[in-house]
């Protein structure tokens, strides 16, 4: 009983993650600007990476394989999910910061407060 609940919960999470991954990839294709694509990257990292890994860990726990295979697969899945939840937001944060400061991509906005503060000499974090 509990196995079937785990299996369907994991399957639902994985399918949801796959759909989110497709949506994020289409968003990557359709958005015009680097700063717009950061939104799609959020969906691709957390929705398309974190949820399916948790779902696959639950699926692996519910199968009728040997115990050590199940434990190994779900343990690796949970660790990788934790790593993705830590690294992907930090990585896109520092990439966006460096891109804005170096002028690699100039944002098409009306007012740019960060640039004004930097020109005033403020040492923003």
């Amino acid at each position, binding site marked *: 009983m509990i196995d079937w609940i785990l299996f369907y919960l994991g399957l639902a999470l994985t399918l949801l993650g*796959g759909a989110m991954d497709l949506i994020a990839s289409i968003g990557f294709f359709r958005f015009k600007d*680097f700063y717009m694509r950061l939104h799609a990257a959020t969906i691709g*990292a957390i929705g398309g990476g974190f949820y399916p890994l948790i779902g696959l860990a639950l699926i692996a726990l519910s199968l009728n*394989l040997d115990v050590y295979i199940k434990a190994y697969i779900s343990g*690796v899945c949970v660790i*990788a999910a934790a790593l993705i939840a830590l*690294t992907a937001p930090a990585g*896109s944060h520092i990439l966006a910061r460096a*891109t804005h400061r*170096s002028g690699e991509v100039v944002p098409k906005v009306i007012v740019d407060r960060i640039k004004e503060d930097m020109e005033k000499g403020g040492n923003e974090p």
Partner: protein
Amino acid sequence: MVSYSVLEGVLPILFGLFTLAMIIYSLRVFTSKSVSDMVLAVDALTIDLIIIFVLIGLYYRSPYLLIGVIPLAAWILILDIVVSRYLSKGGGK
């Protein structure tokens, strides 16, 4: 215990979803205008590939293929920091 054959029925659907996302991401990587765009798309592509690795491990019923997933997840952070370091230390446009 859920029989393995139930998973075998849905595994092609999962493979199809994530492989389609992989193809679209890689098209974005190949046609991007700036380096930042490319690195951002590589991040999402690598996360997509991590799930394909786990699915391949489930397909072969062998857990030993999965250990490469963890350095792959750390590589995302390394690439981001290295490129942002290069850009902010005077390498930008």
